[in-house]
């Protein structure tokens, strides 16, 4: 493609593209297109867990890079996929990733698309429930069912993660049916 020249390109432009460009400086309504979510989620699952955990979620006084390092190294969890598919994932690492995902879902200006952050968040909770029989969330059963149900339905979630989310959803629904809570 020929070299881009802003003055030439804009000199004949109609108001629509100009309006869109002007809006580019506004808070992000959505950085990426909905049809790109599958690619972004794949990228997220392949990304290094410790790369993201070194970011803004480290508590004061704790060097960010040290967060989750021993757990991740011991369990050989390099990527998010490694963590969520691990037969015995480190609970502490799941909690750290859940915190990271929550921070991003609550503050989309942090950068990670909030839908991706939300699936990651419920994925960690699901991995703890399914693999460790542990609960790392204070959400009520009803809220968890709603969240896991939403995550399972996202068309861009890969099959393995969907199965994990589905198993957690079934487990929590059965547990609720047994003790009569939330049903």
């Amino acid at each position, binding site marked *: 493609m020929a070299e881009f020249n802003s003055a030439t390109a*804009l000199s004949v432009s109609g108001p629509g593209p100009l309006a869109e460009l002007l809006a580019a400086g506004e808070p992000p309504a959505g950085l990426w297109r909905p049809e790109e979510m599958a690619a972004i989620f794949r990228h997220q699952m392949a*990304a290094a867990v410790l790369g993201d955990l070194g970011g803004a979620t480290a508590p004061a006084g704790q060097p960010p890079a040290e967060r989750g390092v021993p757990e991740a190294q011991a369990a050989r969890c390099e990527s998010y996929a490694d963590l969520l598919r691990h037969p015995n994932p480190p609970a502490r690492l799941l909690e750290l990733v859940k915190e990271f995902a929550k921070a991003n879902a609550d503050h989309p200006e942090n950068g*990670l698309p909030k839908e991706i952050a939300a699936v990651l968040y419920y994925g960690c909770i699901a991995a703890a429930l399914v693999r460790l029989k542990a609960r790392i969330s204070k959400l009520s059963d009803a809220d968890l069912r709603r969240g896991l149900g939403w995550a399972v339905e996202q068309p861009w979630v890969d099959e393995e993660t969907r199965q994990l989310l589905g198993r957690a959803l079934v487990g929590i629904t059965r547990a609720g049916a047994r003790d009569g809570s939330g049903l």
Partner: protein
Amino acid sequence: MHLDSLIRRYWRPLRVFLASTFPGLTEEQAEGLLQDFAEDKLLKAGWLQRADRERGLFRQFLKRSLRNFVLDRLSRVEVKNAPVSLEELDGELVEAGSEAGSEEFDLEWARVVLAETLRRMEADCMDPAAYQPRRSQTWELFRLRLVEPLFQNAAQTPYERLIARFGLKSPLEASNMLLSAKRIFKGHLVQVIREYTEQDDAAAEEIRRLEEFLARLAKRSRTDAPPG
């Protein structure tokens, strides 16, 4: 910023306004009147001070000044020497409607503002003297993702090709780079506008007005377009 530089930058919108408001003028006459307007009015001490906030937006003030200047200039010219009669021009003014001329001026103004913003953003990001990691890639990402699809009908580069091209390690890194590009763009946009509004709150208001204006015009263009 010096007023003469400002006038040079926005010369095209002024010419467009003159042509659409006074369609009877030849290109040469319009250019001559604009030169006179710049020398006799804009560059005279005190003019800019009158374009203060009490008198409305700088853009509106500029349009009104130019329109009045041309009418005044033509009314003082001997009828026999006038490039075109005032009566005729007045008729054309009413016929053409000053709103159309005003809209063409504002559209052209928005084009100049945004083109200047992009030019500065590119120069800033690509400046080898001010080395900042990934700054040049930030411009490239903005160009590929936003600018070329909007203005050159290019297909938007898919996410997977972007991360491969820029070696982005995670969606967080990719999103932060795009957010960073948008922030740099916004910074330059405010700077370009602030050079004529002179105050931060007035710049924010000007951005809002330009957004409203372009959105209104875009909506009307879609409505007026023949069904496809």
